[in-house]
């Protein structure tokens, strides 16, 4: 039970070498542009000519398709069906079953929205695949993100698998004393209740010890923190970031101008 709760795939690629903030800006850029621009084809084009080529550039195409399809297909598919069937848009009726009568317009509308979700989830996937969480956090704390915030994010990612392992131990211990964990759903659900006490209170006690341990290592020190990882922030990083911000502003302007 030592796996990490992180998508990160270690490669050596242009995308991996970009500054984490640049990649984060890229993600927000894609999302904002696909939601802001009033053109129907923007999200489709962003996927085809933005996210997918980038996944090849980052040498994580296989992982990207794997994760994003598994994550997105259920969510975006559900959204598409619901909106296509229930969005009351006027237009040419495709078919009619009982009270459901999707029109061409509602299908188009639903597809557009599903694609926006697709852009959002898949660009975040790409980001997580190519950015190590601790690199992201040390870069952000260097830029003024409070250390406590960074600590909470990273330690949660690390500690969840540990808590899972502990829950398994407690279950095994309780089962060896006759706890029923294998019959009907309700029985099993109610048998989880005795697990909560030891797990939660045990974790609370641990929190105090951990607080002492990190305090003993100067966690709340008022000195300016430094970072073990030198995270490169090149001129091209800054250029990309400014270009993206400009594009976001243009999309916003186009949106305001056209509506």
């Amino acid at each position: 039970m030592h796996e990490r709760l992180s998508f990160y795939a270690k490669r050596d690629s242009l995308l991996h070498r970009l500054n984490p903030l640049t990649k984060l800006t890229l993600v927000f850029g894609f999302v904002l542009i696909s939601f802001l621009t009033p053109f129907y084809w923007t999200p489709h084009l962003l996927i085809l000519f933005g996210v997918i080529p980038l996944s090849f550039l980052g040498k994580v195409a296989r992982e990207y398709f794997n994760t994003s399809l598994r994550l997105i297909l259920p969510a975006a598919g559900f959204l598409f069906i619901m909106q296509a069937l229930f969005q009351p848009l006027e237009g040419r009726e495709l078919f009619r079953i009982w009270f459901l009568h999707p029109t061409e317009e509602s299908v188009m509308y639903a597809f557009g929205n599903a694609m926006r979700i697709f852009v959002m989830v898949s660009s975040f996937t790409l980001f997580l695949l190519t950015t190590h969480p601790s690199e992201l956090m040390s870069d952000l704390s260097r830029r003024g993100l409070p250390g406590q915030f960074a600590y909470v994010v990273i330690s949660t990612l690390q500690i969840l698998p540990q808590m899972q392992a502990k829950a398994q131990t407690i279950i095994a211990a309780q089962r060896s004393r006759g706890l029923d964990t294998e019959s009907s759903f309700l029985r099993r659900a109610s048998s989880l209740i005795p697990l909560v006490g030891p797990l939660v209170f045990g974790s609370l006690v641990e929190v105090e010890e951990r607080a002492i341990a990190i305090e003993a290592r100067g966690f709340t020190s008022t000195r300016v923190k430094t970072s073990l990882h030198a995270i490169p922030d090149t001129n091209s990083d800054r250029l990309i970031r400014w270009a993206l911000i400009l594009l976001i502003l243009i999309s916003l302007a186009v949106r305001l101008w056209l509506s």
Partner: protein
Amino acid sequence: MAIVNLQNVTYQYPLTSSPALRDVSLQINEGEFVAVVGPNGAGKSTLCYTLAGFVPHFFKGELTGTVEVAGSETHSSTLNEWVMNVGLAFQNPFNQISGAKYTVFEEIAFGLENIGVPRDEMISRVEDAMKLTDISDLADRSPYSLSGGQQQRVALTSILVMQPKVLVLDEPTSQMDPIGTREVFGVIRKMAEQGMTVILVEHKVEWIAQFADRVIALKDGEVLLEGTPGEVLTSPLVEESGFGISRYTSVARKAQKLALWKKHKLPVTLDEATEGFAHPLTPNPSPERRGEQ
């Protein structure tokens, strides 16, 4: 010169009815290796927290008397400054892993990042510390994938790398198996040999008897006895309280009753015991010979 100086320290945790430390006065010299023994609830951990500044800064509560380490006084100092002087490691190695780092190397660097050590210096300090505690081969492992003994050595290294003047260890081997215990004691002993001031709370009397310069026995928050391992660990007072007895002392005490142990002094190490049984009429081996087993 005393680097640690406690004068009439009394401390009571919030929401408790009696003090955990009562009128404790201690002087510990620079480079000294002091072991603390005592039954459960004697105030050993509280003493550690007091030395490390967590009492009163973290636990609040009322502290009277003065606690002085390396010339600064706990009341007029903040915890942030205090941890630079006194390093603290404790029982559970798992809870001492910060949880914010993915490799052992990063884990050890965590404290140095917090206190703003420049990157180049940080890397060389981490490398040196890892060499000292013999964990260089673990650098790229996840701290969570290690054995208890390895984790505890990582925790110790994480404190040592901050170069404290005094090292306070609260039962660092209590959750270790024999191999882990030996690994951790190896590190502690090395620290002591390099002149670090070490204050160690420990139940494993046989180890204390070998390494410690001085033993302090605590009971009910008070100093019961203080002296060399040979004096304290064989004292009837300690025996009555039921802690801090090595098996060598117990055996010799039994043998004494059967008139098989002829020396005046009781042994605390294997060497002293074998010496006593083999040559019952020569004096005890000199202290320099302790620790050679």
